[in-house]
């Protein structure tokens, strides 16, 4: 039982880590997000190119379930992530 709990907490830690990684990517690539800017594509493309499928899935899962810690620039890119 105790084991199970610590595992859960680690899953959260993993998601937290992915959320902050994804926000960092969005902050850097969406730096000058303006109308007509393609930053959503660039953010999605970066995550698609560098993240393992499991990482993307966890991020999307989090976005669907809660998502409150995702930055606006990141949210704009989510629908372009490969599943």
């Amino acid at each position, binding site marked *: 039982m105790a084991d199970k709990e610590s595992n859960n907490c680690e*899953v959260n830690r993993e998601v937290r880590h992915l959320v902050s990684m994804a926000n960092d990517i969005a902050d*850097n690539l969406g730096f000058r997000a303006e109308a007509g800017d393609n930053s959503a594509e660039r953010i999605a493309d*970066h995550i698609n190119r560098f993240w393992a499928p499991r990482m993307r899935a966890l991020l999307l899962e989090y976005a669907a379930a809660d998502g409150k810690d995702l930055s606006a620039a990141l949210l704009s890119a989510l629908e372009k992530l490969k599943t």
Partner: protein
Amino acid sequence: MSDIQQPLTQLRILDLGTPAPRDSAAQVSLEIDGQQVQVDAGTSVMRAAALLGINVPKLCATDSLDAFGSCRMCLVEIEGRKGMPASCTTPAEDGMVVNTQSGKLEKLRKNVLELYISDHPLDCVSCPSNGGCELQDVAADLGVEETRYGLQGLNHQQAAKDESNPYFTFDPSMCIVCYRCVRACDDIQGSFALTVDGRGFESKVSAGQMESFMDSECVSCGACVNSCPTAALEDKAVIEMGQPQKSTVTTCAYCGVGCAFEVETRANDQGADEVVRMTPYKDGRANEGHACVKGRFAFGYTSHKDRITKPMIRDSIDEAWREVSWGEAIAFTASRFRQIQSEYGRDSVGGITSSRCSNEETFLVQKLVRAGFGNNNVDTCARVCHSPTGYGLKTTLGESAGTQAFDSVDKADVVMLIGANPTEAHPVFGSRLKQRLREGAQLIVVDPRKTELVNGPHIRAAHHLQLLPGTNVAFLNAMAHVIISEGLADEDYVNQRCEIPSWEDWCDFIRLEENSPEHLQAVTGIPADELRAAARLFAGAGNAAIYYGLGVTEHSQGSTSVMGIANLAMATGNLGREGVGVNPLRGQNNVQGSCDMGSFPHELPGYRHISDANVRGLFENEWQVKLHEEPGLRIPNMFDAALGGVFKGLYCQGEDIAQSDPDTQHVEAALKSLQCLVVQDIFLNETARFAHVFLPGSTFLEKNGTFTNAERRISRVRKVMPSRSGKEDWEITMDLANALGYPMQYSHPSEIMDEIARLTPTFSGVNYAKLDRLGSIQWPCNEAAPEGTPTMHVDEFVRGKGYFAITGFVPTRERSTRKYPLLLTTGRVLSQYNVGAQTRRTGNVVWADQDLLEIHPVDAEDRGICTNDWVGIASRAGDTVLRAVVTDRVQPGVVYTTFHFPETGANIVTTENSDWATNCPEYKVTAVQATKVTRPSEWQKKNAAFNRRQKALLDKARV
């Protein structure tokens, strides 16, 4: 094939007496002893003679140093000239007629020699240099055996030996005051540690102001020892073991300079070859005969008693290790991995390649992961140092590598050094840079800390921009702002070579007031007028070169900084020729190579994305297996996945992730959660404490292969002795693959290189025969460049047109707060290497035996901290304790330490923050508090207890 497999046994290269003239345009012809010779103008008569095979006796001359003309041994006759000029200092001239042999010359030379010998012990037979002494050679050539002046004369023979350096002795009684050592220390090494006191017969060489070597400025590079013609400066190992008998050319296994060495060996009583000495190889293009204390002397770890040479296994990390046969260890590992994959899925295992292992070995591990494990969960320790370099340079220029050869710096007029400390971390390049600075090139140092190059012997940086840790991008943007807004850019170059829309976009961005030095000085801490002056100096130079290190990459915006650096170089037209460029200084010896070899989870060898079906097809065809098209997990994500319960098995080649990766407690928890951790290394490293299988690897002396240094130079590593564990590292990986059912058959690493060449366009022209012939090759090496490519991007960028990436400054999350008011940054010391596993096991500990915390006097006083006090360092990740050094090398608000010693656990305080693009950890910025303490931290106590337990478990295996 056989010629490749034999070690190349070298004869010592002939010493031509004086160096080749630099940049000589004209040729002159002259006659020497009746033979005609044509040489470059500026060549000395001595060198011209030597090129003809005529050996003029010499003592003070050697071709690694400019001629000095003090010994008068090399006199010659020149027709039409009075007297007998010294051939080493006399330039050859057109039409000269030179005579090097005559009765008169011989008599004069004998007289001079006898004077030297009269002041020199004559017991050659018991002298350690016997057979390796130039004085002895000259005496033999001249037929002088005994001296008429006798042994009892006035001489220095009673002077005491200096044994203070752990690796060499200075015996003044043997010294003939030829000044070679002094010149080597000044001209080559640039440390100015040696002096000559007194005049004439009374003159005497000494370290510092009559100090011992250890107390002087000496950094133990060994240049003086190499240059000494007698036994006055001699390796202790030569004194103890005798003159070496055999020499094999190989490559240093320490840092990214990749110096070439001759490993000099001697057979011991049992007939086994032992290393006597490592001598820097004069023909090595990376170092041209120079070395540093690590490569030159610190090889004792290779035969250290802590080496583990038998495979070991255990079911859990609380059990004692069991020594087993290779067969059993491999079978155990394979069955564990198979079982894990069948239970938890194909993606539940992975591998980590080492940037200390060879290209061939790294290639094989990623092949095992991709083809054998069937996933792309492969990463490398280069992740934690230079992954942003790969990303940043690929994005802007099109290739993930530095643009120059090291000797390019000889043509630079202004050098900007960002977040790099080459005199400590890349010493041989540091010496080369210092030579160029002494010739008048200007230097801009961008570093939070005052490094040696800011103000060293005979060197002073034009600007030291002492920025706050974590503000590199702001600094680079401010530089660019000055260059663009003051019209200093090289527009012609940009128009020709770069992508114009990206340039215009970038200019619009960089011109914004938010990027002005005035606006940013509050962020970076760099006074705006100083930054403007530095930008003008940089942009106004004929050739401006940028060199950078981990102080650029190990940040949350490491990749952005690298792109900012490339932008600056493109905007000022400083790419594509010698003397300029963007030059990452790599940490470990094979960081470049391990990245080239496809160690990243998203990239196949040659930096080609795994999603590219054409490239994948090429590999699938060669490897006869279907490859997974999605990127795998990076190291930090492997740890997360391990703690998430879905990643269970890790094969770790020669990398100490428990010590070198940030946030140690998180890493340790992840390692503990694995069901099978396989560590392949030469020592039971920190990571191995969590391992179930230990596979003993080989040192660079015990295997064949290649390393690739920071200038893309591929050099051979040659086996000089059999592996102590019985297997070279590539053989272990091969056995494991075969046991897992993925067949691999290689009989020599050259076959692995052939496979790399077949699969990688930038390596297609590389093979061992060519490496033997050329000595080394800088990739790309292919049909277009059959002998390699010293300077990249010459006519166009690899990408085609250069791309200006927008480099917005996004401050790190890691900021000083009330609770953690100081910023901790990390670095290296000269004598130690990385996590120190090797150097800590050598005499190098006399220079540094612990990690120290540098703290500014103001911060120290606030906290009542004095030098040598124990100081507790706490961050939000953890805390540790180390000793303080109060110094103004750091600025107020910043503290600094190294991470060479595991007891310190410097990474216990670093956080999981990382570069946005590559997840290279943010080692260079951690918010901390420092307090005076009396006891070790909780972590250190727990760690010490765990160490004792693991040591006991090891001892059980070894009885």
